[in-house]
């Protein structure tokens, strides 16, 4: 799994792993790896017809899932083998950024794209993407986004695409030159005059934490809470919901050649249990939205989720839900990756 976030890592290492060891005597060994990296790894295994691989369970979504699905790298029939899958939110479980999941992966969490800004520096935060662009003109050098090879950077550009094309882009994945020209017009006012962009979201966060830029962004509306409490992000960090926000579900899957598939199923069962999901959504480790359908839970569990409450960096949840949009399919992600370099030029 991707290992770039301390909160997520310690959720797995300090919370999930000990529980798994205790209740099922299954040893969980987290390996930090780029998602694309293990997909490539699995496709090599497939090519060489290696039936016993090295990875038991993967954290996956979006274009990587599409690639894995097309290459036949994942095991199916997860729904019937993981009892807790019953509790999943059915809409979330159905499709992964436009690709039908077809029982190859189970929803693990649900998040929305959101921006955060430092209220001690930004007086009148922009309300729309158009206002954001004008804001960068008034505050040159204080905003940037990650390169589009990064998951979040790509998503930022997709929000701008949605602003122009709405959901019609899914049918014809052609983006006009004028869109890229307009995006290029942002460059002179970005951090370092748009000469370079942060390689990863973590680098953007680092710039934000040090006060070099005044805004950051990311999937997961609750992600800034722990950073603020720990004093990494500025104390006045507040949420910023613009015109629309991509809702994204991330999933768990089992590779075709998992050496210990039963252990993997036990892990999935545990990760989808209401208790584990509750701790995951809480501010202590991660703050990742649950993938369970709360109406399917019993009353006690429902109440526990409701009692998690609000944080100062959380957005207005109704507003966020209202502006939620589904993600484009992987084709758009690919097109953005291929064509964006001209903006960075």
């Amino acid at each position, binding site marked *: 799994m991707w*290992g*770039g976030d301390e909160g997520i890592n310690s959720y797995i290492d300090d919370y999930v792993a000990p529980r798994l060891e205790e209740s099922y005597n299954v040893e969980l060994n987290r*390996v*930090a*790896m*780029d998602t694309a*990296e*293990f997909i*490539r*790894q699995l496709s*090599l295994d497939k*090519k*060489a017809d*290696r039936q016993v691989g*090295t990875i038991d369970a993967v954290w996956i979504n979006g274009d990587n899932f599409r690639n894995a699905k097309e290459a036949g790298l994942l095991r199916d029939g997860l729904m019937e083998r993981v009892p807790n899958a019953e509790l999943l939110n059915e809409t979330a479980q159905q499709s992964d950024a436009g690709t039908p999941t077809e029982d190859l992966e189970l929803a693990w969490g649900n998040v929305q794209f959101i921006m955060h800004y430092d209220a001690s520096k930004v007086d009148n935060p922009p309300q729309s993407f158009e206002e954001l662009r004008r804001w960068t003109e008034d505050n040159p050098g204080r905003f940037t986004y990650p390169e589009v090879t990064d998951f979040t950077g790509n998503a930022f550009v997709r929000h701008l695409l949605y602003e122009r094309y709405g959901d019609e882009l899914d049918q014809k994945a052609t983006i006009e030159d004028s869109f890229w020209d307009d995006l290029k017009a942002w460059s002179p006012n970005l951090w370092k005059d748009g000469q370079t962009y942060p*390689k*990863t979201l*973590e*680098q953007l*966060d*680092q710039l934000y*934490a040090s006060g070099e830029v005044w805004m950051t962004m990311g999937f997961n509306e609750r992600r800034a809470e722990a950073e603020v409490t720990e004093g*990494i992000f500025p104390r006045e960090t507040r949420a910023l919901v613009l015109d629309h926000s991509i809702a994204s579900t991330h999933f768990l899957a089992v590779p075709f050649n998992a050496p210990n598939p039963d252990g993997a199923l036990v892990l999935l069962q545990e990760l989808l249990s209401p208790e584990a999901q509750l701790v995951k959504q809480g501010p202590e480790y991660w703050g990742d939205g649950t993938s369970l359908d709360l109406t399917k839970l019993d009353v006690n569990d429902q109440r526990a989720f409701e009692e998690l409450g609000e944080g100062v960096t959380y957005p207005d949840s109704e507003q966020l839900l209202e502006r939620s949009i589904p993600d484009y399919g992987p084709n758009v992600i690919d097109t953005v990756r291929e064509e964006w370099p001209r903006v960075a030029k």
Partner: protein
Amino acid sequence: MIRQGLLICLTFIPFISLFFVVPSFEIENNMAIVHTIGLIVILSGINVWLSMMCAWWLLWTDSRWKHVIEWLVFLPLFIPMLATLFGLYLILAEAGLIGTYVGVTLALLVVTIPYSIRLAYNGMAVIGRPLLEQARILPSRRRVMYVLYPLFSRLMRTIALFTTVILLSQFALIQLIGAGLIPTVTTELYQSYAGNNRGLALSNTWMLILFPVLLYFLLSGWDRYMVRMLKGRLQ
């Protein structure tokens, strides 16, 4: 004098950065250190052995293949490292060695050995044949212990050191061939750089610099001990 001082200062400037941020000295990943030390030991050993043997053969053995082989072992120096790496990746994938310790070791051996042979070759050429010929009158065990080892110990130390430095520089190689399954201090440094932990990145940098230094002192200490012991025996 002033010019010399200036040049020395210039050389030292980059080291100032080591003191910019307080390194966290937290050890994120024990395995990374274990892997790194393991790779250093294994690769230094193989490199010293193979390169000394090969240089010896190239310098003092008569064979009509000599020129061809000389070219062959030096040629990899001129192949860009990433090109070798991409090709190796394809080969090792075919052999199913991606993500394994063996694969990584082999790949590192391929990129370090040309440099080691070069060093061994130059070093031995300087020592020269006469001294080694004279040693032939001694029985082989004594020859190795009293003549060859003391003569070559510096050279061996240099080769081990260079191998270490080159292997500590490899991020792309270890990431690609190791498929991220074999973390080393180098991959940790890169990840903590790409992440947002400067303290951790800096403590990894410290480690990368200290490994060769420690190795140097360890090996020099060992050499001094050996020389003293051998001298004692000769008396």
